[in-house]
Structures are given as C-alpha cells and as structure tokens.
C-alpha cells in the first residue's frame, strides 16, 4: 500500500503531497498524521499541496478533519501552496476550508506556526509571572 511520507522538523511535521490522492490514500494520511502528532507531541503540521492539481469535496473534508483532529491534540495545521485554479474551484464548489490555516509556501507556513506557538509561549510565561 502506498504511503505519504511524514517528515519531522523540530516541533513540526511536514507532509508533501506529490501524487493525486485516491480515497484510501487520503484516509490513511489522516490516520497516520494524527498518530504521528500524538506520538511526537508535534505542535504544528504543514501540509504542502503545491503539487496537487485537484481538490474535491472529499479531499477538502480530509484537510478540514486533519486540522480539527490535530487541534484537539494541541497542534495547528497549515495548508500551504494551494494552486490558484484549485482555490477558485474550491470556492465555486462552496468549500472555503474555514477552520484551516493557509500560507503561500512552506517557509511562510512555518513562520505562521512559529508566531502561533510564540504567542502561546508568551501566554504561559505571563501566567508564570502572575503566580509568582
């Protein structure tokens, strides 16, 4: 069975989707990612879809699910590199992926995750200050 590789980069996981996903592959990715987030305690997930030419409602639902599931595990998901034609089609289809963070490329996605984590850390620092 084909598998989409998940790379670990510090506190983040990086997934680059290079092939057209059929349903089973996409569902496997969902399970693998959630397991991986749980196992590694990753704080962020980057899904690079710049090589994906089609995102239909099923794929869109998987992306949304991954974001919600990782959020429960205290990790944010950022989808990066969506092609213009894919974005236009998704909007026309009525799917705006409202619960998912997006970024232009992996680098910016990484920066976005860092700021999200950064503000989180500050908050815990503040808490610490108050308890002292």
């Amino acid at each position: 069975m084909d598998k989409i590789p998940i790379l670990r980069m510090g506190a983040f996981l990086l997934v680059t989707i290079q092939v057209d996903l059929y349903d089973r592959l996409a569902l496997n990715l969902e399970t693998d990612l959630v397991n991986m987030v749980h196992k590694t305690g990753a704080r962020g997930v980057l899904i690079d879809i710049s090589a994906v030419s089609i995102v239909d409602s099923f794929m869109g639902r998987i992306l949304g699910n991954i974001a919600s599931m990782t959020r429960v595990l205290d990790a944010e998901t950022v989808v990066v590199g969506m092609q213009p034609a894919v974005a236009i089609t998704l909007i026309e289809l009525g799917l705006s992926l409202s619960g998912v963070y997006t970024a232009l490329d992996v680098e910016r996605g990484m920066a976005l995750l860092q700021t999200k984590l950064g503000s989180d850390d500050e908050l815990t620092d503040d808490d610490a200050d108050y308890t002292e």
Partner: protein
Amino acid sequence: MTNSVAQFLKKNKALLLDTWIQKQLASDTLRDDLMTNDELRLQSEELVDLLVKSVNDNNIEQTESASFDELFELLSAISMSRARQGFSPRETGLYIFSLKEAIFELLQQDLSSDPLLLFKTSLKFNRLLDSFGVVTFETFIKGREEVIFRQTEEISDISTPVIQVWDGILALPIIGTLDSARTQVVMESLLQKIVDTGSGIAILDISGVPAVDSLVAQHLIKTVSATRLMGADCIISGIRPEIAQTVVHLGIDLSNIITKASLASALKHAFSMNRLTVKRAESEKKVL
C-alpha cells in the same frame, strides 16, 4: 422558352456585370477608401459568375435549394469581410440591392414586348435577391458580433491590471461592473500574481465599481475567500459612502473581510500587517 431565366442571364452576363459595376461606382455609398475599384470589380465578377452558373428556371423559386449553397457561401464571405473592414450596413445592403436594380434594368430592355412575362420574371428575381439580401444582412451582423466579441475579450484582459505596490503587497483596481465572467478573470490574474510574486497581501480597490449589489458582493467575497485559501490576506478598499449604505441595506455581511475607505488607508493597514512604518524624513534644519 423553357429556360428563359438561365438564357437571359447567360446572354446578358457581361452587360449585367458592367451595369452593376457602373451603378456601384456612381453610388454615393461607394467606399473606395476601404476597397479599390479593381477589388470591387473582381468581387462582383465572381458573384455574377456564380449567379449565372447557379440560377435556372427550376430553382429560382426555391431559395432553400442546395444548388445555391455555393452562392450563399460567397455572399456570406463577402458580407463578413465587409463587416470586418468597417463597411456600414447600408453600404453592404446596397451592394446587393444595386445588383437587383441592374437585373431589373436589363430585364426591362429584354422583355419590353411582353409585360406579363416581365412582371413574372421580375417577381422571381425579386424574391431570390431579397433572400440574398437577408443572408448578407445576417452574416454582416454575425461579422460585427465577432468584432464585438473579440473586443470584449481584449477589454477584459486589459481591464484587470494587478500592480505590485510594495514588496509583498499587490493592488488591483477594479473599474466597471463586476459580473461573474469578469470575476473569473480578476480572480485568476490576482491569484496567479500572488504566486508569481509571493505576495502575502492583496488590496482590491473598488472605487471604480459603479454599484455594489448582492451579486457583486458575492463575487467580491468569493475573490477574498480564494485569496485566503492560497494563504494570502485580502483587503477591500475604495468603499464609497453610498456603497456602505447599500451593503448594509441589502444585509450583506462583510464582517469577515478587512474593508477600508481608501486605497491609502488599505496600504497603511498592509504596511502595519507587514510591520513596516513610513516616516517623514527629518528635515535638515532639525538635524542642525
């Protein structure tokens, strides 16, 4: 007289062409600026040739007959090229109607001894040439429509300039009505430019949009959502007071979209999002 029409045409072919050309040259609708007289003669000759070849007593009253296909094709081609060259409908129409006049003139000379036959034959030619006129007119309009179609495409191509106003900031001034076809073009060029320049912020300026109804608003929201899917932020600027009023009256929800009254304030907002500040350079006097 079994084939009087065909005979008449064959006999008078040269004369018909001459009479017709003369009529065209004498007419004040002659456009020798668009077409030389030689070209006109050549075109007319081709048409008369085909007319003489195709028309006979059997088919003259059946304008739908397949034997006229070639003739109609030529007529369409002539009419189409005239539409593109910029002839007026009147000029194009008179081109065919002057042929009718020429035929009538010759018929009159030929059949002056038999008024009844003259009348009958004239009537037949009249019907045939009227159908020529209709074909000419139809294709003329089609030709013009094609010109309009091409121009519309050109306009929509040039009317969506995406400008990079700053490193990482794009602006797109929309001028004119935003219909769904236009929205497609706007979205495509904006999103492509976002990818090409790696810009994180896009400003959509609608000061040039005459009115915003719920459909236009929907198109704007779509564009903003698509930009967001790509991972960029979109600001809508140039919202005039009357647009703000209609938007609220129509119950359109723009609360999820960053909106600014002017392009300048949108740019300022974009700067602050990118943590940029614009400062007046300190004057020399102050430094001293």
